[in-house]
């Protein structure tokens, strides 16, 4: 069976137009041809060649028909060949393939709920954060403009993920992707942690891996919300600004719990660490101080008729009383903390998630499981 072909399915809406072998000669302009087939994210793609596909498949371990995953909601089979086709289209180098594959496998775990993220009316997109030596090996950017343009690895790894969700997963806007607004991260949303400028252990080490491991973290995320603080010279001042960004009932975490990410710029991180705060201290401080009252997130029961209260999605142990404090997420561990960005600038970012309907996943690039059990608090003893 060839990529793009259907097996025993009679749906007309998603019937493949043409398999990869025996294609009618496409028009002279291949880039336009991919646009016409809707095999694009709206930007021109790099037309794959057999040589480029083969180079990616070789990095993945050969065997082009090996099925790596099934991508919901369409349920297309992501063989290594199909993965390679999408990576080439995105502009990836072959050496990015282990990161793309690890991220896709993380997205396809049950707890990540890719089916839901693809179809939701919310704007969530997969945010990838890469840790470990592979960041340097493939030339990722963890510094200035880390969420922005300008780095091939960051840009095309994230783009390959999106192309796979579109083509294999069928996440076409308005069809199976029902997002009301979407956000720019649905083109590409991939960064690396700036381990070198971080005063703390890297994220993956905090979670039990070794510093020499490489890993990718994926979370269903809204766009970054900038946090500026040029005045504070201690942890409390910086963190109170992040608390302020988190303490709104407009984002999904406030009304549906789940997980979020906080990306601290290196200057802010240095100031916080100078106050003696560890990673756990930072996450705990944010958890304890960020939040809303039950009255705020329930609109003081103004719309309670018909059960229209954000209620069931939040933990049972939250007090449903007007002045009760409701944290942004259930536990400090639900705040995923990274250091990233350039050396200059007193900025950080808060990134809300989708809610408890999804759980983030950290996966080693080589697929090996991390050692069982906690290594130590904050991972610092593994360094």
């Amino acid at each position, binding site marked *: *069976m*060839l*990529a*793009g*072909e*259907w*097996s*025993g*399915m*009679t749906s007309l809406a*998603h019937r*493949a*137009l*043409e*398999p*990869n072998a025996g*294609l009618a*000669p*496409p028009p*002279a302009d*291949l880039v336009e*041809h*991919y646009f016409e*087939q809707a*095999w694009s994210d709206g930007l021109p793609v790099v*037309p*794959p*060649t*057999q*040589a480029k*596909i083969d180079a990616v498949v070789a990095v993945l371990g050969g065997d082009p028909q090996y099925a790596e995953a099934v*991508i919901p909601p*369409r*349920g*297309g*089979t*992501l*063989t290594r060949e*199909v993965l390679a*086709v*999408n990576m080439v*289209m995105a502009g990836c180098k072959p050496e990015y393939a282990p990161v793309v594959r690890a991220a896709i496998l993380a997205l396809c775990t049950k707890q990540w*709920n890719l*089916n*839901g993220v693809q179809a*939701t*009316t919310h704007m969530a997109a997969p945010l990838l954060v890469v840790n470990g030596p592979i960041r340097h090996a493939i030339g990722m950017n963890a510094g200035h403009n880390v969420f922005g343009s300008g780095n091939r690895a960051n840009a095309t790894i994230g783009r390959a993920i999106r*192309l796979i969700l579109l*083509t*294999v997963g069928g996440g076409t806007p308005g069809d199976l992707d029902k997002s009301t607004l979407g956000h720019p991260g649905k083109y590409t949303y991939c960064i690396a942690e700036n381990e070198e400028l971080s005063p703390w252990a890297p994220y993956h080490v905090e979670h039990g891996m070794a510093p020499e491991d490489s890993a990718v973290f994926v979370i269903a995320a809204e766009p970054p919300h900038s946090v500026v603080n040029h005045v504070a010279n201690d942890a409390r001042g910086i963190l109170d600004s992040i608390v302020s960004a988190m303490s709104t009932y407009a984002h999904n975490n406030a009304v549906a719990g789940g997980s979020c990410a906080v990306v601290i710029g290196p200057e802010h991180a240095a100031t916080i660490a100078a106050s003696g705060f560890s990673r756990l201290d930072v996450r705990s401080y944010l958890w304890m101080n960020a939040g809303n009252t039950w009255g705020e997130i329930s609109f003081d029961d103004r719309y309670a008729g*018909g*059960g*229209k209260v954000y209620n*069931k*999605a939040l933990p049972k142990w939250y007090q449903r009383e007007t002045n009760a404090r409701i944290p942004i997420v259930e536990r400090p561990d639900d705040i995923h903390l990274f250091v990233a960005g350039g050396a200059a600038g007193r900025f950080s970012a808060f990134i809300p998630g989708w809610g*408890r*309907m*999804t759980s983030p996943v950290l996966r080693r690039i080589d697929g090996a499981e991390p050692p069982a059990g906690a290594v130590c608090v904050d991972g610092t003893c593994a360094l």
Partner: protein
Amino acid sequence: MEHRAYDPRGIVHAEHRELAPRVASPLGLRLGILDNTKWNGRRVLERTAELLGAASPFASVTRYTKESFSVNAEDALIARIAAENDLALIGIGD
């Protein structure tokens, strides 16, 4: 330069299943309603059941609830709905 297009979509492996036959009338049948936990979904389902049963009353109407609107109903729940009802009503109201 190679002049060939590669389909990036991958194969969908799925079994073909026939739709269940339509019922002529709901009269005397057991109706199961699967609530997806969204309040507008609940309104759509309840109103639909009300309209369907107005002229031809159901033998029974039983309500079930998914764990979350964002995930598939558990297999055990689907099996239970199938075992306890003749018709199932599902829907989305965001």
